[in-house]
């Protein structure tokens, strides 16, 4: 899932300066899971905007907001409410913001959230990043611990020498990914995976923007 965080209220109000009426859109999936773009957050945002003297012409939760066809259907079915708004405020990930922009032509769409990372839902309110979508998965060699994500330097051939008490040089609260990998491979008797020199990554696999057709 895509993990998001609400922007500071002042930042949201700053971007809405000059817009009197606003239509609010959330997302039933990731942003609801993150409690950033669900029913409650839309109500809170509506109350905030009204307290600032703005008019909320309506609000809706798309399922999901990143689905262009669904956005277009929604735009068709709600064209009057949307038409009456100066701008749309999207409580969705960055992809949702852009799908809404593409699906609802001619309207300014503004992001109420910051899009952080692809994450794992651990438990209520706790999300962790395990994958950076690098385009070339190598975790068959590391017992499913991704050094590109978990090592602050994204190293492929072992620890950097900066780890102390098995913690990362950059954040002593975080585990050194390569010591985790080493300990797992040792238990599994697969240390030869670590002995092999990993070649440089092919960053062309990450070229942007990407498009996939299946």
């Amino acid at each position, binding site marked *: 899932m895509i993990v998001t965080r609400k922007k500071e209220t002042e930042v949201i109000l700053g971007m809405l300066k000059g817009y009197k009426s606003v239509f609010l859109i959330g997302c039933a999936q990731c942003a609801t899971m993150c409690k950033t773009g669900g029913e409650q957050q839309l109500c809170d945002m509506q109350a905030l905007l009204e307290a600032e003297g703005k008019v909320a012409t309506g609000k809706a939760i798309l399922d999901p907001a990143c689905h262009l066809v669904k956005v277009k259907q929604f735009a068709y079915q709600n064209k009057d409410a949307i038409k009456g708004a100066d701008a749309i405020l999207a409580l969705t990930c960055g992809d949702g913001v852009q799908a809404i922009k593409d699906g609802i032509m001619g309207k300014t769409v503004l992001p109420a959230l910051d899009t952080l990372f692809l994450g794992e839902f651990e438990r209520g309110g706790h999300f962790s990043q395990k994958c950076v979508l690098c385009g070339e998965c190598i975790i068959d060699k590391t017992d499913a611990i991704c050094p590109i994500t978990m090592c602050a330097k994204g190293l492929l051939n072992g620890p950097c*020498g900066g780890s102390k008490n*098995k913690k990362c040089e950059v954040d002593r609260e975080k585990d050194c990914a390569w010591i985790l990998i080493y300990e797992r491979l040792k238990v599994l008797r697969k240390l030869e995976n670590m002995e092999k*020199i990993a070649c440089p990554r092919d960053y062309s696999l990450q070229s942007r923007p990407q498009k996939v057709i299946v």
Partner: protein
Amino acid sequence: MGLREAIKAKKFIVTSETAPPKGTDIFRMVEDARPLAGKVDAVNVTDLQSAVMRLGSLAGCYMLKQAGIDPIFQLTCRDRNRLALSSDLLSASALGIGNVLILTGDHPASGDHPGAKPVFDLDAVQLLNVARGLCQGRDMSGNKLNGKPDFCLGAVVNPCAEPIEPELIKMRKKIDSGAQFFQTQAVFDVERFGLFMDKVSKYNVPVIAGIVLLKSAKMALYMNDNVAGIYVPKALIERIDTAADKQKESVGIACGLIGRLKNICDGVHIMPIGWERLVPDIVDRAGI
């Protein structure tokens, strides 16, 4: 004697280190390093150490070379992608710089530009391979070079890393990738370093032990708390803390360490951290 010759002659190697200035005034760095000429085999020039923005290692190396000192070009993976790293290696060669020490580099988060984008396009093992490839006349893509460098390539190892096995695995990879010498993190605990040497002497690559000049108890405590693989024993901390003349004591401690290291490794790398002028005295007194 230059580094390459010292390695070849199997003599006890002595290297030291200098940091370029934060600014363009390189005069003092060169003047501080000048007394090292003839006293040490080579001098490292650090590459934005601790991720603090400074004048570059390459320019520093060139200035040292002009002053008659064999420089070691430190090159980290932090700030450049594979194109820039390869290009800087060619530039070093064109400037007559023959020694390169390849490191991963500290993360920008620890430096004075914490918002910088960390690059780490290659890691130290991969960069050693690239440098070796350049010496064989080919770039990373297999393109033929018009003139090729001839580097003496080095790498670093942390002899007191905990656990040590992943560090040893990486050291073996660095050797397989072309490392011809190793400089180590600062050593204060000679016994523990001896255990490391027992494990790596069979690799048949010169290991040059790091000597950091201990300036104060505060510095020792800071290193113990914050720097991976450095452990300053309590007795040494008390010794520097109670010394009337800290510089004199620091030299004494360094000489004592070198005396004990002389028989267990292949050389010492003296990191004076601003006290460059003390290094010639240390070299003389330690009889190296």
